């Protein structure tokens, strides 16, 4: 604590809110975390606004269109021989993505324990789960396109259904794909000892993890607002 002593002698903390404010504004890092992590948080805040704008816009056009909105549970149904099961593929995709958040969290833990091998394998598992999510999304896109859904119109109802679907899942899919690449880069750098040369610091695993969890969280909102509503 003593390093922070100011010439004006502000080392003694005032009680209550003032103490919190003083501490917050002192001559130290506002957030007790590495620069990269702080920057990732701020970026995610900005990205939150992007996805919020997408989702709000989707709701707005859903209200403004006069054509009936297609029923998602029917459009996104798959049948394996028998009756169509509503949202089955989306359910699997969601399960996979949330599982990948679990493996990611374990990878972060292993990273801080400097267990490079386990970190690598867990990150690789996360990336594989992410890639399979993107793969299933590609399958879903193909299926819908085969059924005649286009950005400018579809046989089920309002044209905005297809527009919003391709735009929002596409933008999210790009985020997942970028995340997969990001995870793979970091994973292989963990494996080949890249970070050992930089002081054995594995905060980068957590930073990549932040991004990954964020992408998962966004999916939860897309799932709720687009598929369930």
């Amino acid at each position, binding site marked *: *604590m003593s390093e*922070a002593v*100011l010439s*004006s002698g502000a080392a003694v903390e005032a009680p209550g809110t003032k103490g919190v404010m003083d501490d917050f504004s*002192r*001559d130290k890092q506002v957030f007790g975390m590495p620069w990269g992590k702080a920057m990732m948080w*701020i*970026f995610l805040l900005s990205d939150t606004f992007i996805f919020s*704008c997408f989702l709000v816009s989707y709701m707005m056009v859903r209200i403004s269109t006069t054509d009936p909105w297609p029923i998602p549970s029917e459009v996104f149904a798959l049948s394996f021989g028998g009756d169509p099961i509503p949202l089955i593929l989306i359910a699997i995709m969601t399960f996979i993505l949330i599982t990948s958040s679990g493996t990611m969290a374990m990878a972060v833990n292993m990273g801080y324990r400097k267990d490079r091998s386990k970190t690598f394998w867990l990150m690789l598992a996360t990336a594989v789960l992410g890639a399979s999510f993107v793969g299933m999304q590609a399958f879903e896109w193909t299926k819908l396109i085969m059924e005649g859904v286009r950005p400018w119109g579809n046989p089920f109802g309002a044209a905005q259904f297809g527009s919003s679907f391709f735009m929002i899942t596409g933008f999210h899919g790009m985020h997942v794909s970028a995340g997969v690449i990001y995870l793979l880069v970091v994973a292989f750098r963990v494996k080949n000892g890249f970070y050992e040369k930089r002081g054995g610091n594995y905060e980068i695993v957590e930073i990549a993890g932040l991004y990954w969890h964020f992408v998962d969280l966004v999916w939860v909102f897309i799932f709720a607002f687009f598929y369930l509503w």
Partner: protein
Amino acid sequence: MAYVAIADRDHEIEHHDPQTFITKYIWSQDHKVIAVQYGLTAIFVGLIALGLSALMRLQLGFPDQFSYINPENYYQFITMHGMIMVIYLLTALFLGGFGNYLIPLMCGSRDMVFPYLNMLSYWVYLLSVIILVTSFFVPGGSTGAGWTLYPPQAIMAGTPGVDWGIVLMLLSLAVFIVAFTMGGLNYVTTVLQARCRGMTLMRMPLSVWGIFIATVLGLLAFPALLVSAIMMLLDKALHTSFFMPAISLMGADPGYTGGSPILFQHLFWFFGHPEVYIVALPAFGIVSDLLSTHARKNIFGYRMMVWAIVAIGGLSFIVWAHHMYVSGMNPYFGFFFATTTLIIAVPTAIKVYNWVLTLWEGNIHLRVPMLFAIGFIFTFIHGGLTGLFLGNVTIDLPLSDTYFVVAHFHMVMGVSPILVVFGAIYHWWPKITGRMYNETLGRWHFWMTFIGTYSIYLPMHYLGFQGVPRRYFAMGNTEFMPESAQDLNAWITVSALFVAATQVLFFINMIWSLSKGPKSDPNPWHATTLEWQTPDHPPKHGNWGHELPVVHRWAYDYSVPGYDDDYIPQNVSADDAPAGRDHGGAH
């Protein structure tokens, strides 16, 4: 509590001084070089926009005298003038230019936290500028949709540049936002995490506060523009109907159905209103520092100034629909947005009072930067007061889409920030280049610009009250406008051309100074802030030599009683101060 002294993290920045010309000046990661690159590019596109405004004014002042200005061109000039000035000049210059230069130097950091990302930010910005400029040369020319790009007309046949211009415009905006995000993350993180020892948040110069909050606004507001750009691109390219309602075009059905043009307006102004403060807040901050330094007096009410910046930043997100009163909305919404809009006047007025009180009984040196700073107070009060008119629904309705609006926003977010830009360039020029400019020429530049802009915009308010509509190519024989309105329009055009021509003085001065200007003192204005205390002049890569500065006081120790000098730099400790006694208002 985990405490990591910022200075201890120095090793995170690699100090490989660039060697070759290319790494030093082209692919440079030095924030100072990037700042100059940003600045020069922004000023270059700004000159294009200035030329466009001159063409526009020629048509309005002397209708039908110029065969090369037809209605299509005129709308393209208007659109590109607005878009370039607001985004590619002012946003880029204040945040990319001054933000880059001042944040690390004023906070006592060696560079931005991620220099490589910072470099990338400039090159992506340059790409967006190239895309923008390309749109002048594609078939059909640049878009003529007006800088607000309102659908449905922005992407419907009949609007100039509907084939290529609008696509390139939207693309360029999206690329700009990527560039801004990379830079903006750097600025915010640097301010939060990488200040030198002793630099508490409440000791930061107001320039840094203004730029910091403006960057936060940018990071939260630009997403709305990005999303609307993407959706409009899809409407244009893939024929989706996000913004396009079922509409008939020349009796034909273009095939759109059920979209919401109002949605675009909401998204655009959710970005557009904070954008006003993205431009204004850095100007507020910088002008505070100029006034304090050249009046040899501490800024009046520093804490209030900081909180006013923060409050204005917060409020700017809940006022956007005051741009849409005429679009039609529930009266309760109009009431809400008018109220929040008028509330913004409170922190803004606090700032104005504090600037004036800073000057009161100050030891005012009317040097060129100070002239521009005081000029800003005048133009800003004028622009701000007319904002109170337009913030009220009932007064806005008749004044909307008249010259009154044009005069208002040019005063408040055109002239005012530009005066600060000039003041800031004159103020920091010696630090950036190591040379002085010609003081006399600078004064001429100020007075001609200042009087010239008043001569443009004061009559415009009057024309607005007369009901002269904005964005019209020609007024025709409109009964409610007296014939003399045209005389005033001609006068405005002459003044505008005069002001545009006057800017030559600025460039002559700066180019002369670069080669022949006398070498400047490292701290010619006897300023307290850190950027004037660098060991090298101009500062070198890494800014601070071997040791980072340690800050002992706030940024405004001017004319402290009991000291020999009328200023005490921030990095002078109580023991080293000339009279050995700490009087500072530091907290």
